């Protein structure tokens, strides 16, 4: 099975198909024109489905960039 980062990249690529690999790694809310509210919901729902996780309401506001979501997922892996 692909590692966490690769799977997360696939989620971002599905929601933001115009981003290249480097742009995905730097992607954050506010830095990408296509990252609107609908994209936020689509992305986080896709991540929850792909990784079989559920973001707690109080954790949602942290999920605002590729790096932060990856860190959250990796922290779950090691927990």
């Amino acid at each position, binding site marked *: 099975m692909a590692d966490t980062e690769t799977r997360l990249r696939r989620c971002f690529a599905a929601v933001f198909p115009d981003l290249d690999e480097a742009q995905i790694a730097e992607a954050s*809310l*506010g830095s990408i024109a296509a990252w609107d*509210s609908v994209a*936020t919901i*689509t992305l986080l729902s896709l991540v929850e489905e792909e990784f079989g996780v559920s*973001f707690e309401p109080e954790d949602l506001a942290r999920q*605002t960039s590729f790096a932060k979501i990856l860190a959250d997922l990796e922290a779950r892996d090691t927990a």
Partner: protein
Amino acid sequence: MRLVEYRPEHFEALKAASPAFGRNSALAHRPFVDHYYTTQDWCRLFLLFGDDERVEGSIGIDRMRFEADGRELFLGFATNFYALQPGAGGLLFMQWMKRAGAGIVFGGSADTHKITRARNWAYAPEVPTYVLNPPYAPRPGEAAWRRAAKTLLRRVARRPLPAFATRLAAGVRDVLAVREEHEYVDGLAPATSAFPFRFAPDLDYLRWRYDLRLPFVRYRLFRILRRGAPAGFVVINDSPSRLIVAHGDADDALALAQGMLLAALEVGAADVAPRTVILTSLNTAMQRVFEGFGFRREGARPLAVGTLKGPIALPADASSYLVNLDWGDNGLRRPFLDEAGLAAEGDLADQR
């Protein structure tokens, strides 16, 4: 960013952000915020703080009890849903869905409906707003001739509410009456409602949402009596230039419509100046009563229900839904009654 549940110590930060939420935002008024978002577990406000500790968004989540074909259904009604940064509205929407499980929108911004349509929510037909004695309020940027025409209409086309009393259908007062009550008590709501889909709160919720003793809004409660026996109730939001039929329910749709008219006439019985009356209705029998009385249809509000994953099924015949205007805080806009020096009441355009 961080999301926090509102507490009174957040008020100054909230107030500082509120101009960006709109000139009539109720979030700038502490009595409103503290009453509706800190006194009951079923209604809370969540604030999105940016890294600079400024409020960048908000969402109130009001857990409301509905009945659909006799089934109990709890839906989160979003209030004061604002996001100042692109994309942040999605975080607030997910907060809403994760805390409430399912939601309802009645009214709402274009941005909200962009989200709910993308999540494939179920939409009922739009709910018409009915207005008696329209305010003919001038709007920014309006042509001079139109403003002049509205000034004329305000003088000649509006009448004090007592002048409408003769428009009640013949025989209504022989059967129906309203009596003002000063407490929410058992037996107020009808044992059986005429409506297959309706907002059906318990007494504790009514006492809180339509509190009869708030300093910033005056709600008045009327029991509808049919030949002296209880048939339902009506809550009116009573302010100097307008009445809003906030909520009501009855065992019969026509009795409720006539009861709403009787209650409005009762509130305005001593009026010498015209007041606007505003209500909403999806029920076709009630709509005919309002139109026959002289109400004019002005605009309509979307009504949608769903979850994070999709729609919720509602009873098929939307024409018999009971949809009153003042769900959530739909009827509450600044300036409030306790705001001295602010002459004009909340923008009626926001109410439609």
